[in-house]
């Protein structure tokens, strides 16, 4: 780990000023990603700005009927919050599908949004990586790329975003509240994470000096028709190879609204509005799910080792939509799939 200065920020303004004054400064919240990356010498902040004293951990009702999750609310507090469990079970189950009890007790809303890819080349400072060292190359292309992207990747980078929480938030059309040197602003969830393009080292649209203060969940209620299906190499405590957050509104036997977000396939939680729209008005059956899955994955490109993900994703989408339609969400503890 590199040596760094430390500031225990007493106010949000103090944190923003410290971040604005030093481009090498980094916020620390739960530390579960930043400390890990510092131990590997991937993150080398000149200064660590500790925001854990700031009053940003509340989960509050919003006037519009939605909920506001403070940036420092832990993943465990969010997943077990009775309001989240009752109104956003999709989010609760996505969070509980990720990491472990210990990590969820430390991990925060803001930190989870900004956790970095688990690409093994990114984690190894001994090799090239455009995400870590812009312009150095991407050894995952043509290399060992079993866990890498099949959608939205570029010739510069094929890393995937690792979060489960974010996949559910993308499906729920959450909004991210940030505060920075220019004041507060709101970022639509879809506009927060970026595709790699020519600048894969920049993960998000967060600007220098900005701090995430909270995430707002809109009041939409997907009732019983949701599921978070996570497929991985072992049944627990592993990142997703493919995950699907699905939520449906079903009226008079037909699909009235669809939310579908995919994890483990792209640089960001993947949503395909055309694919979603293609399901509206349809009967929620296997044939329509299959057609939508085919459409969503039509542009998928494998890199060799990860070719299997395309078919896995197709099957996962169909299964997740079937689970959502039937109101039989994936269990976290009993993982047999029938």
């Amino acid at each position, binding site marked *: 780990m*590199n040596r760094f200065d430390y500031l225990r920020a007493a106010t949000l303004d103090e944190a923003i000023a410290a971040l604005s004054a030093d481009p090498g400064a980094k916020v620390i919240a739960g530390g579960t990603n930043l400390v890990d990356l510092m*131990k590997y010498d991937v993150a080398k902040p000149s200064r660590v700005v500790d925001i854990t004293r700031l009053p940003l951990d509340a989960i509050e009702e919003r006037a519009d009927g939605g909920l506001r999750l403070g940036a420092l609310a832990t993943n465990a507090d969010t997943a077990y919050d009775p309001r989240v469990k009752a109104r956003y079970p999709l989010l609760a189950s996505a969070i509980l599908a990720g990491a472990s009890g*210990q990590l969820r007790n430390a991990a925060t809303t803001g930190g989870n949004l900004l956790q970095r890819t688990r690409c093994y080349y990114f984690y190894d400072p001994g090799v090239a990586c455009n995400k870590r060292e812009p312009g150095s190359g991407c050894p995952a292309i043509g290399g060992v790329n079993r866990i890498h992207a099949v959608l939205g990747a570029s010739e510069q980078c094929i890393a995937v975003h690792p979060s489960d929480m974010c996949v559910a938030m993308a499906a729920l059309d959450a909004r991210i509240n940030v505060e920075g040197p220019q004041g507060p602003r709101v970022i639509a969830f879809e506009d927060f994470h970026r595709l790699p393009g020519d600048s894969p080292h920049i993960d998000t649209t967060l600007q220098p000096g900005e701090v995430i203060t909270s995430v707002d969940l809109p009041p939409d209620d997907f009732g019983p028709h949701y599921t978070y299906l996570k497929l991985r190499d072992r049944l627990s405590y592993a990142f997703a190879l493919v995950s699907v957050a699905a939520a449906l509104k079903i009226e008079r036997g037909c699909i009235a609204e669809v939310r579908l977000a995919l994890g483990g396939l792209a640089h960001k939680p993947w949503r395909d509005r055309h694919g979603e729209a293609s399901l509206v008005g349809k009967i929620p059956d296997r044939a329509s799910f299959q057609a939508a899955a085919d459409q969503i994955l039509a542009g998928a490109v494998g890199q060799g080792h990860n070719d299997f993900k395309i078919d896995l994703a197709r099957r996962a989408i169909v299964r997740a939509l079937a689970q959502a339609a039937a109101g039989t969400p994936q269990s976290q503890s009993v993982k047999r799939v029938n």
Partner: protein
Amino acid sequence: MMTADLHPAAVPVAITINGRAYELRVDPWVTLLDLLREQLGLTGSKKGCDHGQCGACTVLIDDKRINSCLVLAVTKHGSAVTTIEGVGAPGDLHPLQQAFVEHDAFQCGYCTPGQICSALGLIAEGQAKTRDEVRELMSGNLCRCGAYTNITDAIVDVMERAAAACGREDAA
């Protein structure tokens, strides 16, 4: 009160560990696990992976189970930490420690302090109701010896005894 080595970059940290208050100066890059083991001689918490993957370093911070290897100690100023040294004592074992012995839930014993701290956290969280749920919520603790079945038995045993005790109180 105890004072650790002074370092120019060191930051004042007031922290309670196993009920004892410490006023320390800690370098910002020191993890809670290294502070416990290297500076305070509390070697019960184990360093397995040092990357949040194995659970051997699990302690309770403000009553929540957390991987101490991924925590910068300076961020826990004002917190109360419980390590395995603060759970039971030889001759006066915590019921969970007793159950680990009864169920042969450890073999080499390396992962045991983390397993016990994690299980204490799990029981306090109150989210696990079934054996499958206990297994899922203990998945952050790896055991090289594969003592998982017996570990689960020990935890379920303690949960069931606690539930039975509550039942008796209700009936009384």
